[in-house]
């Protein structure tokens, strides 16, 4: 891929990050709601610390999945038809647009994971054994969800179905990521190797990247 392609990827990511900074949807709406969702569970089951510690990692990843995909779909589906036409007439490569939007969503989701993760550790008294591995797990999950959400956003945008199709598209495809993330967390807690779960997530990310890049042009042209 050429330097011009990567320049367009960066241009799209810069634009979307600036738009998000001005809108503040992730910072002021999604992150606080994610923390509130984590807070509701102790309110429901009481201060049963061993129970919270047991269910905490799973709850954390479910919340990351649900909010993460919504963030990514929203990011991928914000443009009006006039804006999409104008971008096409600038010579914007659809694959570069896909990559730029995915990059934006991944960065936003990484921020979401970190803030909600700190809240989860505080609320559920989660152990931090093997935490350096989270420096790999968090970006992988963020990238995987960003790819999934951006792809789903492109599909619903191309068929003008609104966001009604999103759960059907995303739910089955997010299972390997959810499984990999929760099992990696559990492996770290028990001191087991998590390489197989990391490999699963890497494969998911690679497959979604290839599918996203290859379908970017056809999805744009069917709008």
């Amino acid at each position, binding site marked *: 891929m050429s330097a011009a392609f990567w320049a367009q990827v960066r241009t799209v990511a810069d634009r979307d990050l600036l738009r998000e900074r001005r809108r503040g949807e992730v910072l002021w709406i999604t992150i606080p709601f994610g923390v509130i969702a984590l807070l509701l569970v102790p309110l429901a089951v009481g201060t049963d610390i061993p129970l919270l510690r047991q269910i905490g990692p799973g709850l954390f990843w479910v919340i990351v999945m649900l909010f993460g995909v919504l963030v990514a779909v929203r990011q991928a589906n914000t443009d009006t038809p006039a804006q999409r*036409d104008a971008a096409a*007439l600038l010579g914007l490569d659809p694959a570069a647009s896909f990559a730029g939007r995915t990059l934006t969503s991944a960065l936003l989701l990484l921020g979401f994971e970190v803030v909600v993760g700190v809240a989860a550790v505080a609320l559920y008294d989660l152990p931090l054994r093997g935490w350096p591995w989270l420096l790999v797990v968090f970006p992988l999950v963020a990238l995987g969800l960003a790819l999934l959400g951006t792809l789903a956003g492109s599909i619903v945008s191309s068929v003008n179905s609104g966001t009604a199709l999103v759960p059907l598209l995303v739910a089955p495809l997010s299972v390997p990521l959810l499984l990999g993330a929760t099992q990696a967390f559990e492996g770290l807690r028990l001191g087991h190797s998590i390489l197989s779960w990391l490999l699963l997530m890497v494969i998911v990310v690679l497959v979604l990247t290839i599918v996203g890049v290859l379908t970017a042009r056809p999805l744009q042209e069917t709008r």
Partner: protein
Amino acid sequence: MQRTSVRTLPGVAQGTPRAVLEGVGVRVGTTTILRDVDLRLGAGETLGLFGANGAGKTTLLRVLATLLKPDRGEGRVLGAALSSDERYDVRDRIGLVGHVPALYPELTLAENLQFSARTAAVSSGRVDLSLEAVGLGKAANRRADACSHGMQRRAEFARELMLDRELLLLDEPHSALDRDAADLVEGLVDRVTSGGGAAVLVSHDRERVVALADRCVELKAGTLV
């Protein structure tokens, strides 16, 4: 504004049409939007396009912009066949200003143009010059959603000025513009056509378009008359 003489673009032979449509048809579901449209747009030519609401004017512009592939017929725009992937390669030479603004509302006018310049690999130094040229120099740092519809249209004209288009498609170019700003349309069209490009103006304002166009055609129920 004085029209300048036509000079041919490098690599464009004299008389080479900038767009040719032959028997083009477009359907959406069971509705026929365009039917057997034949159109030839020469180098340096400005075409006025009229028609009632729903006649297919915007659809025809989208076909000429290569954004909509015809269901029937054949066509070439800037030398690229509409039925092939060649059309992707000429898109950055086509300018389209629709009646709905395409600016990003959260970004300033300058940031919107900088995005266009960076995407199209044009020098960012042209952003300020283009905004000045359309009278928006002092509003460059105002967010698009804080600008009037007329200012947003001017900003879109600035984008087209900056990008050196060879085919310019304007949908209701005079709407929301004051009398002074109407000169901008003429200047923009003249800049494109004097370089050997071509322009199509869709409008309900016949008087203004007739004064600007070399010839005019009308769409009735998807057919050119």
